[in-house]
């Protein structure tokens, strides 16, 4: 189906289903159950997971396949956001042209940065991309302030032209939409003591993410993807064989830059504001962490990683001391304060510590990321099932015997 083999088709189907039911899956705890703090099924978080999923999938096309570690991908995200907001200001509040322009502009920037940076590989490539991204960030703050509005960030104004939308009679800012369907409108369904929010913006992001994911699968399975993997394995050997790898790596770089631009455009489409902070090196680092946490080089890994990090960022950072006190109020006073103090280091503004610990544990014990974790659990389950079958019909070969060792 769709040019995919059976395994990939089922995989894609699972991703589609997961996306469709995200508003339900991310709302597992009933209201007033005490655990509803951990519910993540609200539009902003769901949109962010989908958008950063796209960002990470795109990053993985470069890093996972060719092994080129870019430390400057946030530049494309930021440029995409700026392009999209300008489209909202000048042309129309419809998100389609904004997202298209975001991809085009970030693609062009990727051609320039990639053309120069890809002359080097390894750490030099990483440093070059980092330098370019920081330059973009600084430019957005200083010289380009007329375009970026500096620290305040680029925002919509009532007086913007928006030539395609006609004159705005109401005194409030228009909202982003897709052919009239507003991005921020949502259906709320109350059932099972939970409120499920089905948000237009999220489903739009979700559909775009599925498309992006599908293209990534096709890329991974294509001869082009194979070529990229060969670059990762041994680029020198390919060069000795008389093959010029530069066009392939540059193509991968541009594609992944356009994915980042798409993500940036979507961010602006969900919330029409673009700030230079999106281009800061920490933002570039975040996508690297997402990809590695989930599993670099795998299809699902980056999406998983993006989900985990955005969830931690939004849910753990909200657990302040008063919430902790309400959880542990049943403990004796002195102990309560001690426990709350310890937990407070890892929640609220200390959520970075939780993220750091998770990252360390994953990298140490699961070098393949969360995807390797699920794979290990699967094989563990399989191993647990096998001995049962073995007991009824033991085989002589299974017996460990010292004499069988080759001498």
């Amino acid at each position, binding site marked *: *189906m769709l040019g995919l083999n059976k395994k990939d088709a089922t995989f894609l189907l699972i991703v589609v289903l997961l996306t469709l039911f995200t508003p339900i899956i991310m709302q597992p705890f009933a209201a007033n159950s005490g655990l509803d703090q951990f*519910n993540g099924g*609200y*539009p*902003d*978080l769901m949109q*962010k997971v989908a958008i950063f999923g796209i960002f990470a999938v795109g990053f993985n096309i470069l890093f996972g396949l060719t092994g080129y570690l870019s430390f400057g991908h946030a530049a494309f995200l930021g440029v995409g956001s700026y392009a999209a907001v300008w489209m909202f200001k000048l042309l129309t509040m419809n998100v389609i042209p904004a997202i298209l322009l975001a991809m085009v502009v970030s693609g062009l920037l990727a051609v320039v940065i990639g053309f120069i940076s890809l002359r080097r590989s390894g750490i030099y490539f990483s440093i070059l991309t980092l330098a370019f991204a920081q330059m973009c960030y600084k430019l957005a*703050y*200083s010289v380009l*302030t007329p375009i970026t509005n*500096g*620290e*305040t*960030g680029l*925002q*919509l*104004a*009532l*007086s913007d032209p928006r030539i395609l939308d006609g004159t705005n009679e*109401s*005194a*409030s*800012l228009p*909202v982003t939409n897709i052919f009239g369907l507003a991005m*921020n409108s949502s*259906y*709320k*369904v*109350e*059932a099972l003591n939970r*409120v499920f*929010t*089905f948000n237009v913006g999220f489903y739009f992001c979700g559909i775009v993410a599925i498309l992006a994911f599908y293209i990534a699968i096709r890329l991974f399975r294509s001869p082009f993807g194979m070529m990229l993997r060969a670059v990762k394995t041994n680029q020198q050997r390919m060069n000795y064989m008389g093959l010029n790898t530069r066009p392939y790596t540059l193509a991968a770089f541009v594609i992944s830059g356009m994915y980042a631009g798409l993500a940036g455009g979507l961010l602006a489409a969900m*919330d029409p*504001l673009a*700030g230079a*902070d*999106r281009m800061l090196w920490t933002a570039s680092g975040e996508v690297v962490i997402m990809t590695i946490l989930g599993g670099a080089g795998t299809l699902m890994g980056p999406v998983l990683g993006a989900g985990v990090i955005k969830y931690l960022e*939004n849910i753990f*950072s*909200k657990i*302040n001391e*008063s919430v902790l006190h309400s959880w542990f109020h049943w403990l004796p006073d002195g102990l309560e304060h001690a426990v709350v103090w310890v937990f407070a280091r890892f929640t*609220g*503004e200390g959520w970075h510590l939780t993220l750091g610990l998770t990252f360390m544990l994953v990298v140490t014990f699961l070098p393949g990321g969360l995807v390797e974790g699920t794979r290990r659990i699967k094989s563990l389950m399989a191993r647990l099932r096998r001995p049962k079958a073995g007991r009824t019909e033991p085989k002589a070969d299974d017996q460990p015997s010292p004499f069988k060792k080759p001498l």
Partner: protein
Amino acid sequence: MSNSLLTRRGLLKTSAVAGAGLALPTIFTSGAAAFTNEPMGGTVTLGFNVPQSGAYADEGADELRAYELAVEHLNGEGDGGMLNTFSSKVLEGNGILGKKVQYVTGDTQTKSDAARASAKSMIEKDGAVMITGGSSSGVAIAVQGLCQEAGVIFMAGLTHSNDTTGKDKKANGFRHFFNAYMSAAALAPVLKNLYGTDRTAYHLTADYSWGWTQEESIAAATEAMGWKTAEKVRTPLGAGDFSSYIAPVLNSGADVLVLNHYGGDMVNSLTNAVQFGLRDKQVNGKNFEIVVPLYSRLMARGAGKNVAGIHGSTNWHWSLQDDASKAFVKSFGTKYGFPPSQAAHTVYCQTLLYADAVARGGSFNPCAVAEALEGFEFDGLGNGKTLYRAEDHQCFKDVLVVRGKENPESEFDLLEVVEVTPAAQVTYDADHPMFAGGALGDCNPGA
């Protein structure tokens, strides 16, 4: 999958089912809500969105303390603080409209993006009916825009830019804090008396909305009294070290340095300036002077001895001797062991003013709240008689001109009030050119 046949009848059937499916949720929706996050149960949730990291983290922490205190007082716990001195008496200490006040907090990181994400999750996830906070004008403007779109009230915290209630003003946003124009209007006469009319100023300015408008306001006010402006240099927010910006000041021929910085930036730039010996220099036959237009005690503490004799303006100071200020300092001091900063004061007032407006308007509906706040005159919140102007949602009240103390008695006693500039002197027309270019728009109740 490949052999699915599309017939007319089949298509009709599926679309009917799909249509029913799409229509179904509307039956279950809680369509009764008249506005965004209408509080249904016995509680109401407010969102406190403050910087807990970044250049303004100190201010954010103090704001959070004041918010917690305000919530206590609204719920009838503690000693009631400024509720007892507030001229409006509709708040009874039983929450707001009988609903117990709860709150959620978020970290703005002093970044527009993060602040909006955090405010969004408060509105979408926690059901906050009002968002308040912000220790940076960039952030306040960004969050104010978000609240306008989402249909909740935004009670601005520490934001001093003219734009917040100027070109970026919004119908759902309100500001109690004073602004750059008011600082300039209050400071200029004092500076004239102190330093004369023949001076040349050099501006170092934080490069964002607040810095720009403060630089514009101060330059306009000082130039009106005869000063010249040598140079206006923009510095990035959170630069850390300002040595490279201070060095050129000496060769510029300027004899006054205006530091349009706040928070950690001001602490660093002032310390750098003093270390370079600027204050011991003689330029054009006059003593070199430094002015910090927006002052706060937290910054004074950070900069230590360097603030001695330096003038600036502030919204409020804990050493004020009116009943309201004393009551607030007492209840804040009892709870936390030290006096509140102006940031704490303004957000405490904003929380009380919001609660009071809800009680007077009889509804949490943003439009009812806005109506109750517009043109509201009150007293007893530490700033004397104050007006919430309807045209731009800006409070008009007295402005304090302060000076760093030469011999502080304690680590909190760092500033002394030089002059209380009456509200009339800092009032401007709603269509003043520095505030032009925006429109409040209509109040948005969301839903």
